């Protein structure tokens, strides 16, 4: 059988055996539900694609005066795109004050007075504009303009405001944070699987039987590939569910370039996984018992944790010098660059440099790991020193 066929066979066993575990399937499902819920969250905590909606009361005693009718009409049109105002009649000013205090209404208009919880709410400005428009209209009518003329004056389009900076930046920062958390969780979870899987084969001694048929690098690569496919698959599923929920529910406006940024994140994740998982496999091959795994993998977990915290610094300020450096230096770049591209615009040369360096470092770690692994994996009993493994002869090294 071709060498690639064997690698895939080993990878397939890794995938099958983990998929066969109920815990894995349920865990994935729970993950997806959490992702879907997170994606829906903005819809429930305000904002959303349906835009903002305010409830405004007008204090009317008896039948509405023409001014009040005009104000009601003005309130209906003042919001513009993405903002709507529902108007209700309130019997008295006191009643209105209570309703505002109890959050039943966002604002109440009583003649020339506006009651709101805060003077800086967007609704205050809107209501002020509506009141002003009504007063203006009345003044124009008094000045003898016909309805058509008044409509003409009022139809003067107000300049539209795109508040890109604030909302887009917030959205991007939010996505960047979620991206970093997800990538980190996948890396740390699946790398520990790699470590445990390597030691499981040593503990159960099955590795000697396997290495009587396949080469050590094939076993190592198959394991990394199989577990990597699961890690990426789970990530793709989470991304797809998250994006689908956002798209369908309209809970959240995706900033421009979000899709390509998420695509970039996958590439960096794959490379980061290759780096950290190869490191995990090499270190884990030094020990023979499950309880030694977490200890021997400390360098991996520590590097990952540091990368994680640094990547968080990047999400806070994705254009700073620190962020630019972290986005390039491997292996931090495996988390920092996705945070940067999702969080903002990154010059192409930095993306290219980051990619090249990460590919090179992952290849280097893989080569070192393959050498350590082939010498250490058949050694059972006491822990092998890294230096000994590096110098050690390869097990099962037939031509």
């Amino acid at each position, binding site marked *: 059988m071709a060498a690639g066929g064997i690698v895939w066979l080993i990878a397939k066993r890794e995938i099958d055996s983990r998929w066969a575990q109920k815990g894995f399937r349920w865990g994935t499902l729970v993950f997806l539900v959490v992702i879907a819920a997170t994606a829906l969250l903005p819809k429930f905590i305000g904002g959303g694609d349906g835009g903002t909606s305010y409830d405004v009361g007008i204090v009317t005693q008896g039948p509405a005066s023409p001014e009040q009718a005009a104000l009601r009409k003005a309130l209906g049109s003042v919001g513009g795109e993405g903002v709507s105002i529902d108007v209700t009649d309130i019997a008295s000013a006191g009643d209105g004050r209570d309703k505002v205090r109890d959050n039943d209404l966002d604002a109440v208009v009583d003649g020339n007075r506006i009651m709101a919880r805060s003077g800086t709410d967007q609704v205050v400005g809107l209501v002020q504009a509506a009141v002003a428009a009504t007063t203006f209209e009345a003044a124009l009518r008094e000045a003898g303009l016909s309805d058509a003329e008044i409509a003409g004056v009022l139809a003067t389009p107000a300049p539209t405001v795109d508040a890109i900076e604030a909302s887009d930046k917030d959205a991007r920062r939010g996505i960047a944070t979620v991206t970093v958390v997800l990538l980190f969780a996948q890396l740390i979870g699946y790398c520990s699987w790699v470590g445990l899987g390597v030691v499981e084969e040593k503990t159960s001694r099955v590795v000697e039987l396997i290495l009587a048929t396949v080469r050590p690098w094939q076993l190592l690569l198959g394991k990394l590939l199989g577990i990597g496919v699961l890690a990426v698959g789970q990530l793709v599923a989470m991304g797809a569910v998250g994006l689908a929920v956002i798209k369908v529910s309209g809970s959240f406006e995706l900033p421009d370039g979000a899709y390509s940024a998420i695509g970039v994140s996958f590439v960096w994740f794959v490379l980061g996984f290759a780096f950290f998982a190869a490191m995990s496999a090499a270190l884990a091959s030094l020990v023979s018992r499950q309880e030694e795994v977490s200890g021997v993998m400390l360098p991996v977990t520590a590097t990952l944790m540091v990368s994680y915290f640094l990547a968080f610094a990047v999400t806070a300020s994705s254009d700073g010098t620190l962020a630019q450096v972290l986005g390039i230096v491997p292996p931090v770049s495996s988390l920092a660059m996705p945070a940067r591209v999702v969080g903002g615009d990154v010059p192409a040369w930095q993306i290219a440099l980051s990619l090249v360096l990460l590919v090179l470092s992952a290849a280097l770690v893989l080569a070192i790991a393959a050498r350590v692994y082939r010498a250490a994996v*058949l050694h059972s009993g006491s822990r092998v020193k890294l230096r000994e493994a590096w110098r050690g002869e390869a097990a099962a090294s037939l031509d």
Partner: protein
Amino acid sequence: MLQVDQLRKTFGSVTALDDVSLEVRAGEIVGFVGSNGAGKSTTMRIAMGVLSPDSGQVRWRGKSLTFEARRRFGYMPEQRGLYPKMGIRDQIAYFAQLHGMSASDGTAAATRLLEQMQVEAEPTALLQALSLGNQQRVQLAAALVHRPELLILDEPFSGLDPLGVDTMAQVLRQCCADGVAVLFSSHQLELVERLCDRITIIRSGRLIASGTLEELRAAKGEHQLQVRVDGAPDGWLAGVPGASIASSADGVQTIELADPQLDQQVLAAAAQAGRVVSFGWRAQPLSQLYRDAIAEAA
């Protein structure tokens, strides 16, 4: 088929193998015996190519052992090893595929072997749910599934109940009849004696004896007859110089000969002395040959 030539292997300051050579031919079962730590497993691991010797070499069909040739070997390592949380049929089929069989052929072969080995479990059962004896049968099945040309089995009988031993022995005989070369190690010398065409004894990394049972006996240079003569008076053997009674039990006398050519004179003397009920060369059991060889080498 398999030739192991002058292997030498040291682990640190310990010499594990010192000039070890042996041969296994097609359709032949070779028993490998020796005390714990004598170097059996090290020799077998080197023969399997999972360990490299310091010097010496392993040849298969006259050529240096290659990766591809080794894929046609079946192996049962000293430390048993399979995936504890994997179904037994899938597991055997997996090893079949690693050896180049298709998935469907592998599954079919696995199903057949589980039956042949009389594994008492559902094919979908996880390995860890099986008794040790059944796990051992699955282990052998994993070594046999790809129809290997050579079997290297490290202590295949250890931990088996008497029925398990019978099944295992039967399977090995069948393999041998199919032309497979078999090398196995064991401490159960009566089994080795029963099963093996040839025997190799190793002590502290050095071979001390090798050959068929007859050859081992002959090599010892001991010529003993076991004779039962009813009604013979004491001293009936006095007329045959060079022959003496070494021991006597239950009427059977063990007679030591200085020269094997004296056997006919002893027979004639016995016939004259009384009624010869039995007369034959004493076949030393392997256990005795082994003990003597070990003691001699010490």
